[in-house]
């Protein structure tokens, strides 16, 4: 089992969500975050003065999938979230030791 954590643009959340749904990845968590990457931030303007914003609002999407689905899921997230411009985001993948369904105490893959 792997945890996929994708940092994406706000406006791409809908595309990513429905693309994942199409391959059967339904469960996921979404958080509004502020962060920065290689892009370093952006500029804004207030009363004729330009200033730097070094943390930008992004969406953090997290889901846990079966090992067999990981490559496909990552691929589909990358395609759906991509605009080709700086600031598209990052995808991180790591191993998950255990999953427990709280309602039934079910363990492992079946609990995903």
């Amino acid at each position, binding site marked *: 089992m792997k945890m996929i954590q994708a940092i994406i643009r706000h406006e791409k959340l809908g595309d990513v969500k429905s693309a994942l749904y199409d391959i059967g990845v339904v469960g996921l968590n979404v958080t509004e975050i502020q962060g920065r990457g290689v892009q370093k931030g952006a500029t*804004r*303007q*207030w*009363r*004729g*003065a*330009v*200033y730097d914003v070094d943390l930008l609002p992004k969406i953090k999407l997290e889901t846990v999938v079966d090992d067999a689905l990981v490559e496909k899921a990552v691929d589909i997230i990358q395609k759906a979230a991509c605009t080709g411009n700086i600031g598209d985001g990052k995808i991180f993948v790591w191993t998950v030791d255990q999953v427990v369904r709280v309602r039934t105490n079910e363990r492992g893959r079946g609990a995903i």
Partner: protein
Amino acid sequence: MRKYAVLALTLLGLVAMLPAASAADPSGASNPATLEGVMSSINYIWVLICAFLVFFMQAGFAMVEAGMVRVKNVANVLMKNFMDFVMGTVVFLVIGYSLFMGTDIGGIVGDPTTAFLLVGDAYDVSTMLSWFFMLVFAATAVTIVSGAIAERPKFKTYLVYSAVVTAFIYPMYAHWVWGGGWLATSDLMVDLGGGYGALDFAGSGVVHALGGMLALAACVLIGPRIGRYTKDGKPLPIPGHNLTMVMLGGFILWFGWFGFNAGSTLNGNQLIIAKICVTTVIAAAGGALSALLISWKRAGAADLGLTVNGMLGGLVGITAGCAWVEPWAALLIGVVAGFIVCYGVWLMERKGVDDVVGAISVHGFNGLWGLIALGLFADGTYGVYTADGPLVTGLLYGNAGFLAVQLINAAVVAMWALGTGFALFYGLKRTVGIRVSPEEELQGLDISEHNVSAYPEMVTKELTMSKEGMQ
């Protein structure tokens, strides 16, 4: 208990001293049912409606200022806008109006007993009309400072400031120009002006330059907000929380300004009120357009805040001359005003003067510009609040003396407001203090001064923002 007993006895004693209310016409019953009586009624209704519009400008100031501050200071800036009117009303009843419009003493000040508590001869509908109209103007001058020094002053100090300005600083200078004082009526000024002394139709100087220069003194003495400048003195913008409020406030002020300027005829039978509305709206548009283009070119994007400021600067600039200049001159006055707003805001920022809403440039610098512009562009078609002569004429129409008078007037209001402003705020700084502690400032004045949140659900986010401000 004893304290209250003494207070009650004092009040009773004051009431006992009041003269019988028979000296004047408190009900307006003497207005005859003739053509003259109807014309008089038109004047009353006109002046009152315009006064209501000027009163509503308080809401405009409140919205502009609330929109330009951060979430944590909104309730505080709203309370200041509300309470300066309340304080001003009370002191205007006791002393302010009499010093301003009372029987002239030596060209310097009005007799403080003339309209004390509006009793005796002052208990009269004509005095009531004048008192109410002048009150809403005085309150406009006072409220200019609150936006400039937003997000850091002590609330109780602001209350003291409001009372002193409405009781003394505003009435004194207003008397010199509008109350029969030396700037308007002394032989020296009248001879130099060519039949009339210093003029200021609706108050570029009396209201706006005075308020704006007081704001400059206050800003210098209170110092910039925490986080406004880096350690090396580079300015960092602190964006306000709601541009919708800023724009709504801009529209309300623009709307109210038609009453501010056209109502200053104090006469609904003078049809020049139509021209005054035209010059007023044109100058506002000119100011907005030039500020838009200047800020767009410099910063790279069409800037809402500065464009609204430019519009307000155009209104301030035309206020002195609105009855005396032609529409083309109004456009020019507005365009120059927008220029003054932008470069004034940037100059103040570079000099370390943290004026949150741009009040020093919008009201102070453009108030002075309005006085000078009147001396340049007055076209000789209208007299001193009457269609009869002497007709008011400026430099472009051959009367250089009147420009000299207006330059003197501009210098006097700047020196008076800066002098009294520095004295007042320095005195307050050394006694009750003018600024909250750094901890209170970071927490926000809504909590420290009023123990409320304007937006309770946004408090968590606000705390994160203030920590960033400390770095």
